[in-house]
């Protein structure tokens, strides 16, 4: 494993617009970097289900329901859906919707020095 905390510059600030993403290669690992508007998140671009390029999936919102026929739709753009079997993953935690404790995707801290977007692997 790579030593924890190694900082890797993956983009310059402004390169990834709010709602946008960039998929980068870090030491042979594919990582998706997403701009949520209030900050960046980075996820391993490998679905824990069967290995799809997860970070190429559609971004959507969190859909819940207190009772049939009532739809609560929140956090638009923060739920990533795998391009293969459409399982949902929370961008902020890496946890899947259907089995959040057991099915998760690795996610990495992201910081900025004002000019660069930096992923800590």
């Amino acid at each position, binding site marked *: 494993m790579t030593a924890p905390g190694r900082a890797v510059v993956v983009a310059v600030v402004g390169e990834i617009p709010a709602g946008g993403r960039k998929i980068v290669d870090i030491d042979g690992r594919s990582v998706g970097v997403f701009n949520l508007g209030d900050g960046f998140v980075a996820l391993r671009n490998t679905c824990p289900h069967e290995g799809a390029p997860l970070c190429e999936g559609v971004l959507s919102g969190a*859909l*819940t*329901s*207190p*009772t049939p*026929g009532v*739809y609560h739709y929140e956090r638009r753009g923060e739920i990533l859906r795998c391009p293969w*079997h459409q399982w*949902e993953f929370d961008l902020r935690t890496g946890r899947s919707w*259907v089995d959040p404790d057991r099915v998760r995707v690795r996610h990495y801290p992201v910081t900025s020095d004002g000019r660069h977007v930096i992923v800590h692997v």
Partner: protein
Amino acid sequence: MGTGTAGTAVVDCDVHNAVPRLSALFPFLPDSWVDYCRETGVEGFDPAFYPPGAPLSARPGSRVGDGPPGSDPDVVRAHVLDATGARWAVLNCLYAVHALHNPDWAASMAGALNEWQAVHWLAADPRFRASIVVSLRDPHAAAEEIGRRAGNGFVQVLLPASAPAPLGQRSFWPVYAAAEAAGVPVAVHPGVGGANPLSPVGWPAHHVEDYAGAALTLQSQLTSLVAEGVFAAYPGLRVVLLESGVTWLPSLMWRFDKNWKALRREVPWVDRPPSQVIREHVLLSTTPLDAPPALDRAWVDRFLTQLGTVRMLLHAGDYPHWHHGTAPAALLEQLSPAERELVLGGNATRLYGLPEEAGCRPVA
């Protein structure tokens, strides 16, 4: 039948009492409908898929007197209670008044049928319990009938599996609201309650198709009930699937869970895997049981692991029908004493809120 176990209050969850002739209901039917029946010359509503003379429709000895098998309370009592030692028998009358297209006639016939059950069956033996027959043509009238009957010996609502539409749809929810409020489960049994055929793909040509394919309609109804959110809207509701097998359920749950992971956004009220919803809300009668001919404990272990809990299973004799062979009894033989107690009576006693004290009369 040798299914009794010392100390277990056996509950037979699927006994079919039959109406001897249409006129038996006339004392309980409003005059306008009595005359309507007489003037139109309608003959009756025996379900077409159990012709009394057809193979498997009636076990030997159940045809007594003029009426159809299961129409004499004394004979039914002797066969399903006295001869087996069962403590309770739940009557599911399949007289097909719910198939009538006129909602008012159907509701009146259902009301008369329930009153006839109260007078001629529930009063005949304290060990009988009955299901409330309703028509889905008018779900609000059905809900009123449930509110009127529940308790007083009526322990469940009976719906036909081939309902006018998928049973989860909201137009039927008054029925589920009434059942939940009354604390009675809703049973689904093969039968026709509208224009839809017994099979999900159209009318089969032969009785053997009706029986061999019975689980398919039940599977469709179960997926509808879960996906439409009936159990989310009525968390206290229990549904009982009757006379359609049990061993198909694990494969449906596997598929339902798998598809839910991808499609749950369509049905966000299904906030847990469908298998979990099913295990919490659904019970099934073990007659018939579709199992290998040589049913052994290894098979039972695997099946119960796949099912998830023995608490979903209800013992049933399916009197007077005779479709089921020996597999239900073979299952009971393979169960541990604790499992057997649950299947024979414990699960049903809890489900139907039956008194738990020992039997009130000596049994064979």
